[in-house]
Every structure is written in structure tokens, then in C-alpha cells.
């Protein structure tokens, strides 16, 4: 195992590890207090070496080998699946992963102290996690692995956090998506979803009012408050203006 538990791609010298996971970054949080909770919800005493650490990355993972084995049996589908495709995808997910272990990996580290060279982690991105379970943690990174749905205990591990191959991320995003979930009002369409905009886009300031008998679009009289709403809405349209958490780990 390399000296640094967090590294970018290390090339052909990649060490032998017990387990390779592909992980989706669920959250980046500041941690505090005397008690931490591991992936399965069990308390984790905040003793050495956790005392000094102040950030947690949480990854929801799938075993890479398991996914590679299963992917040939899972149909990849596009952005506008038919009802039959959605049904097949739902069945595929439950058959292949409904009973499978879906590990969660927590990575604790200290802001500003890390030695890893520029390594950016953004929410909802996928990574390759090479996990050596049972290995002693270093003084600046602690890794805890668990399976919230399983019966096992959380375990301490060492980890190499790596970039993921493009082909793998593409398939992971396709499979672990909400493609099997229909939009409201679209589930009975046997030919697939209607065009993205089946009717004119609602005008600004409009609301969909649903009562006991009807659902109708109404445009509320423009007020100062709604003008402010429009300003906020237009700001939201641009994804670049949406605040995001980003952690940069430097080596």
C-alpha cells in the first residue's frame, strides 16, 4: 500500500488491494462533537486518530466486480425510456442489486493538511475506491467502510481514491439513475414519453393549482414579491450560479 491513502491515478504500480469499489460522492460535511456515526449508523468514538479530523466525504458504492458482472444483464436506456424499458430496468436493479451489498465508505480528513496533490471532489461525481479493509489508518485520514443494509459491523480501512474510467462512469450513471421512474402523468404511455414539452412552457409567475376536481395552470397577478421570485428563478436556471460544495485536497 502506498504511503498516502489518497492519491490520484498511480499507474501500473497500483498496489494489490482487497476490494475495488466504485463510489458516488453523496456528501461533504464538516464534523464536530465527541461522537461520530459510521456508515451503518453505529457510533464511532472520536478518539485518536479521529480527534484532529474535521471533514467527512461519504461515498455510496457498488462492488466493481459485481457491477461488471451484472452490467451485461442490464439494458442501457436513454433519457426517454418507454414504459416497458422502465419496467425492465426496475426489475434489473432489484434482481442484480436488491440483495447485494451496497457499501458506504466514509473518508475523514483534516482540512488544509492533506498531502494529496490537486484532487477535486464534487457532489454526485463517481470515483474508484481501492479499499484495504482492516489496515491501520494514517494520522491524517481515517476510512470507515460499512453496509447500512447488512448485518456486519463498520470496519476501518485504508483507501486509494482514484479517478474513474469514462466508460465505467457512463454505465454507472445510466444504471444507478431514476430512469425507471416515470414523470407524473406519463406512466400509461406505452410508446414512451411524449416530447419534452408536450404543451407550452408555463409562463413566468404561473402556478399549478390542484384541488379535488381539477389541475390547472394559473398566472398570478404580478407583484413585487413575484418579480423577486422571477429574479431568483432566472438565477437558478444557470447551474453555474448554484452554490456547490467543493473540497480540494492538496498533496
Amino acid at each position, binding site marked *: 500500500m502506498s504511503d498516502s491513502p489518497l492519491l490520484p491515478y498511480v499507474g501500473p504500480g497500483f498496489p494489490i488491494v482487497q476490494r475495488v469499489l466504485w463510489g458516488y460522492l453523496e456528501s461533504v460535511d464538516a464534523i464536530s462533537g465527541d461522537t461520530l456515526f459510521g456508515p451503518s449508523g453505529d457510533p464511532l468514538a472520536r478518539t485518536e486518530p479521529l480527534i484532529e479530523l474535521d471533514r467527512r466525504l461519504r461515498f455510496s458504492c457498488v462492488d466493481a466486480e459485481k457491477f461488471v458482472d451484472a452490467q451485461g444483464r442490464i439494458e442501457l436506456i436513454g433519457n426517454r425510456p418507454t414504459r416497458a424499458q422502465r419496467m425492465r430496468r426496475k426489475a434489473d436493479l*432489484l434482481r442484480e442489486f436488491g440483495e447485494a451489498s451496497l457499501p458506504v465508505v466514509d473518508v475523514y480528513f483534516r482540512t488544509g493538511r492533506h498531502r494529496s496533490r490537486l484532487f477535486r471532489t464534487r457532489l*454526485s461525481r463517481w470515483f474508484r475506491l481501492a479499499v484495504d479493509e482492516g489496515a491501520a489508518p494514517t494520522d491524517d485520514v481515517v476510512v470507515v467502510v460499512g453496509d447500512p443494509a447488512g448485518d456486519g459491523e463498520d470496519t476501518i480501512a485504508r483507501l486509494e481514491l482514484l479517478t474513474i474510467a469514462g466508460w465505467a462512469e457512463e454505465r454507472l450513471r445510466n444504471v444507478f*439513475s*431514476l430512469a425507471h421512474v416515470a*414523470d*407524473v*402523468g406519463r406512466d400509461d404511455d406505452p410508446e414512451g414519453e411524449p416530447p419534452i414539452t408536450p404543451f407550452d412552457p408555463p409562463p413566468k409567475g404561473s402556478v*399549478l393549482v390542484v384541488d379535488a376536481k381539477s389541475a390547472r395552470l394559473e*398566472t398570478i397577478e404580478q407583484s413585487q414579491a413575484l418579480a423577486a421570485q422571477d429574479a431568483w428563478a432566472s438565477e437558478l436556471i444557470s447551474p453555474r450560479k448554484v452554490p456547490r460544495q467543493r473540497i480540494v485536497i492538496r498533496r
Partner: protein
Amino acid sequence: MTQPTPVMSRDWVALNPLSRVAGLSGVRVDYVGQGDAISILDSDGETVARIDYGGRESRPFSKRPAARRRAEIEMHLPVSAGQRIFLTHWDEDHWCSAVASSRASERARWLAPRQWTSPRAAVASARMTWVRCIPRELEGVALCFQARNGDALWCQKLDRFHAMVSDEDCNVTGLAYSLVQRDTGKVILLPGDAPLHLVPHYARYNSADNPLAGLVASHHGSRTHWGRRSKQFLSQWGADPDVTVVFSCGDPNSLEHPHEDLYRAALPRAQLVRTAEAIPRVIAF
């Protein structure tokens, strides 16, 4: 102005949790450790819909065996057949009590935002017998479910789902909610993990017309995304002593939740309570 919208009428009416409800009385915030589980209450105090169904950290329920965990969840967070559960977003602490074979998974009707999802969230959603997403053309549009007396549950997806953008902070692209009592104009804010100032339909509320009955603090009282505009928005009710702020968080929890000081600065006269202090916590009109 009214436009005909035949494409969505039937299904939206079927999804309306308030179509047979005379009126609303408020919300109950259940203690589920670190996470959210909120009940919408009718005028008799009965649950007519739920917003989120989370809870794992801080040991709200036994971890194992699975059957015991499921039984405890269903005792504390009962779900009737066809009950609506409206999800704010796909972070685990907002849905994880919908365990395998639970009534929540098998009997409820879920409304959820279309977002990027983790493996465990995708599998959990596949276990849900009935789940739907907000259509693309209604992302950003405020949805208003009306009870018979005009009391309303508002819902709004905050941002579009960008299938070509691989990074997404689901806290700010999910669904945010509010309740409004028609006769008094009183409002209860339920932003999920979204910052208050990023919920477009909240801009229509003001202290003159809409007394603030209370809110469930954004993101369990986290400092994340809190800023000047959040404080500015809440401060308009700063003189009101009848506001209740509920922090739905575990005690203890791993994170720096809650930051009561942020809310105390904006609402100096409000009552601040934590779900862990006593259960249940009710915000009433």
C-alpha cells in the same frame, strides 16, 4: 388567466393528498435522529401526507435484525395504503426509513425530484411500488395542492435536472414545500435541505400578509448555504414571538448541527426547539 392542461390533470388530481381533507392544522416533526420525517396534519390532527422518511444516525431505530428495525419504523412512522410521501431530495437521511418490504416502500405513493442518485438511492427507488417524478416542464413551477377550505400545500422543484452535467448538489435542486392557512394567511416553511432564499415561491410570503407560524430549519440547522439573504428573508418576521423553529437533527450527531445562532439572529423572539428534546414537535397554525 387559466390555460387548459389536459395532459396532467387526471394524474395530478389523483396525487393530491388534500382532495378529501377539510383543512390543515399544521405539521408534526418526528424524531428520526439525523434526518427529516414530517407529517402534514389535517384539522383533526391526523396525518394526511408525509414529507421525507429518513433516519439512521443517532440510533432512532434498532439496526438489526431487519424485521425489528422495520417494525420499529412502522410503529413510529405509520404509513397507510396510498399515503403520499413527498420527498425533498435523494440524500439518504431523507428516505432511508423506507426499508425493504416496508409499508412505505410498498403501499405509499411517492413524489420525488429527478436528480442524480447514488446506488443505494436508485435501488431504494426501485423498491417503491408507486413513485413519480416532477415532469421537466414543471421544474421551477410552484405547485399548489388545495384542501376543501382552501388551505394549501405548496411544492416546488428548485432547479432543472441537467442530464448532461455530472455534478449536482441535490440539496439545491430538490423539492421545497410550504403550508398556507387560507383564512389567516399563516405559513409554515419546509425547505428540506435547501436554503430559504433559493426557494422561489417563498418570495411570495411577507410578514404583512403571511404571519410565520414556524419552519423546519433548512438542512437540520446547518450553516451550509446559509447567507445574508437567508437571514434577510427570515428577519422580516423577527419581531414575531409566535414563530417556532424546529431543528430536525440527531442528538448527538456527527455534524455541526444545528447552528441555532443563525436563526436566533434572524428571529430573536422565536421559540427554537430540537426534535431530540421531546417528541413529537408540532408546528400549528
